[in-house]
């Protein structure tokens, strides 16, 4: 194994940004092999991890080192050769740091995919070149678009098994494009590869000189993600009130929270919801620093010119740009629990830093996530099902459509007796 030492320049390291990506698929698609390959070729797998994997591979009777074993963390997963849950993997190149949310791809793991997708900037969709676009490809792509992952990369894998044939690749690309026209995704790229052989993962393939694009890692390092966030609509859900109660800071009152969207600067005129009181930002602070501006996802402390009544769950925004305020919501809900969602039932709802109760009014339709067709329903949503739901909350929420702002457009539902997180929602409108 190479002992290449990446030169770590402190200043350069501090300038790197962060890309969160999701992979979905099963061992059959070569997903774990692809991740193993990315980690291995980018020199992220350490010697002791590789040794452990070599040993397990031998014990299992695998012929080659099974790179899939790098990602499968729980005993049951290694024994059964499956991925049960979302696993997070980390690697960095001199350009960027990456967090991989690795999720299982079968339909019974839809909830895990939804979980991994909720924070991702980019999704890797694996297609087996021998089988082309199949039901699972459509499902993964649809979930990515539903959760508003801005970038999709279709990895046409196992090209070695189709003789590195350009025609096979082109046909798959046009099949995918045709189906993806129905999706709401702005950026789709295609890469022919063989994760097993390492072609077009980190290094350019020597077997496919007809492909002019970048290998996967180069693409991941360069895809433009700075515009993925909403910097237009200032939203600051108040999370924690900072009141020192000390001699030195007698009258200090600050509002701790994370910027959900938009940009805040000292001097900005703001309005606090639900009170409607107006004031101006006196300063934006973090520990002993004063900042010139705050944008997502910065966690800061806002101080205002006036002493107005604000508490956790309130929202600070601009007077001329306010979120919707209301108790009646329509949302795409994905059900995460064995016990189905039923109309008229009440749940605890968490939205930004706000918590209230809600009642399910009705399920308008259920989505077949393989065909993307709307289906009629009696009203229940079973585990892993997604449907459009109307609900009413006990208190007003300050929200935006999910497609406009992920942070102010999402919520979770909690069962009132078990306290389990049973459902998640993306607000469509009202």
């Amino acid at each position, binding site marked *: 194994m190479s002992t290449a030492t990446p030169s770590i320049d402190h200043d350069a390291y501090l300038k790197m940004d962060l890309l969160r990506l999701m992979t979905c698929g099963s061992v059959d698609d070569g997903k774990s092999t692809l991740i193993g390959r990315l980690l291995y070729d980018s020199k992220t797998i350490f010697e002791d991890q590789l040794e452990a994997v070599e040993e397990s591979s031998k014990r299992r009777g695998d012929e080659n080192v099974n790179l899939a074993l790098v990602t499968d963390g729980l005993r049951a997963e290694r024994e059964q050769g499956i991925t049960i849950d979302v696993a997070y993997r980390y690697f960095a190149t001199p350009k960027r740091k990456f967090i991989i949310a690795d999720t299982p791809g079968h339909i019974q793991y839809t909830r895990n995919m939804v979980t991994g997708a909720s924070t991702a900037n980019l999704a890797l969709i694996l297609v087996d070149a021998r089988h082309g676009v199949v039901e699972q490809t459509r499902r993964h792509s649809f979930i990515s678009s539903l959760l508003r992952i801005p970038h999709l990369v279709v990895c046409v894998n196992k090209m070695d098994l189709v003789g590195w044939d350009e025609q096979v690749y082109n046909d798959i690309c046009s099949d995918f494009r045709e189906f993806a026209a129905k999706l709401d995704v702005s950026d789709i790229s295609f890469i022919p590869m063989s994760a097993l052989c390492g072609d077009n993962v980190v290094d350019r393939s020597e077997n496919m000189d007809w492909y002019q694009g970048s290998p996967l890692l180069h693409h991941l390092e360069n895809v433009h993600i700075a515009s993925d966030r909403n910097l237009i609509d200032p939203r600051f859900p108040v999370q924690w009130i900072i009141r020192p109660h000390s001699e030195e800071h007698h009258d200090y009152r600050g509002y701790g929270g994370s910027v959900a969207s938009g940009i805040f600067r000292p001097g900005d005129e703001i309005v606090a919801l639900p009170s409607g009181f107006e004031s101006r930002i006196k300063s934006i602070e973090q520990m002993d620093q004063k900042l010139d501006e705050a944008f997502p996802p910065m*966690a800061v402390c806002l101080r205002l010119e006036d002493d107005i009544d604000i508490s956790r769950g309130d929202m600070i925004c601009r007077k001329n740009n306010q979120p919707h305020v209301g108790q009646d919501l329509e949302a795409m809900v994905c059900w995460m629990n064995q016990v189905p969602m039923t109309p008229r039932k009440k749940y605890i709802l968490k939205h930004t830093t706000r918590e209230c109760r809600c009642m399910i009014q009705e399920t308008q339709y259920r989505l077949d996530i393989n065909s993307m067709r709307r289906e009629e329903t009696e009203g229940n949503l079973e585990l892993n099902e997604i449907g459009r739901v109307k609900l009413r909350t006990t208190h007003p929420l300050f929200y935006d459509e999910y497609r406009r702002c992920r942070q102010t457009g999402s919520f979770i539902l909690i069962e009132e007796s078990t306290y389990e997180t049973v459902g998640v929602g993306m607000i469509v409108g009202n």
Partner: protein
Amino acid sequence: MAGCYTLGQHPETPLSYSLTHLKTLESEAVHIMREVAAQFERPVLLFSGGKDSIVMLRIAEKAFRPAKFPFPLLHIDTGHNFEEAIDYRDRRAAELGEQLIVRKVEDSIKAGRVQEEPGPNPSRNRLQTTTLLDSIDEFEFDAAFGGARRDEEKARAKERIFSFRDEFGQWDPKNQRPELWNLYNGKIRKGEHIRVFPLSNWTEMDVWQYIASEELEIPSIYYSHQREVIDRNGMMLPVSPFITIDDSETPRTETVRFRTVGDMTCTAAVHSPASNIHDIIAEVAAARITERGATRADDKFSEAAMEDRKKEGYF
């Protein structure tokens, strides 16, 4: 409302609004700490004097200053700790002016809550789980911050940031609450608690880079020094009153440092001339073995060692 906007369609966004990955991780951790402060009655922060818990304290300062932390610090002292780490622990807590609670495994043994492992080289790694769970009961803590990171170990890679523990303190990897966006469900019943890992998404390198950029002091054992060591199971263990040295083992003095701060019975030294934080960073960058694999005897027993200990209530 501003003009039509959808995610991923704003090419004119100035680059100055991009946040570096360390600042992104810092913001995520601050958000998590404030969320715990708001959702729980009695949180506590596990502070050992190790580098990860040192970073957690800085995150807490960023989340709550100029006010005091809305929780005390707790250290489970196995009695096998490095003196330098204990000194550092007490000094740092005093500097910050925060309350430090110490509970000792020694006292759990005296009270008959646990028994010292038989044999000449007992490890107290497992015993500290009982002391920790007893402390959680004693103070009725409902949330405990730990510095564990997902890059450390395979089982941890699958653990939630809010990790639910039943009344026995156990982790059930197959029954974890879904965790989406930055919405955290901290609802529990009496007797249950949540372990919270604000540094879940940090790597070892991130921790060191953060310590460098925040200019944080760390215990001296992280830096190169002369120390008496013995070879055992392919690792260099520090000579201490807590291990029994047999005839085949010859203590010798080496220039070493430690990559983690754990018990002296199971934390191995590595050869190193690194005498400042930038040397350490260069060394970590060049290292080809993970920090746990290199220096923690406790994880070597089986492929699923950590998974098993976590199910019992270990951090």
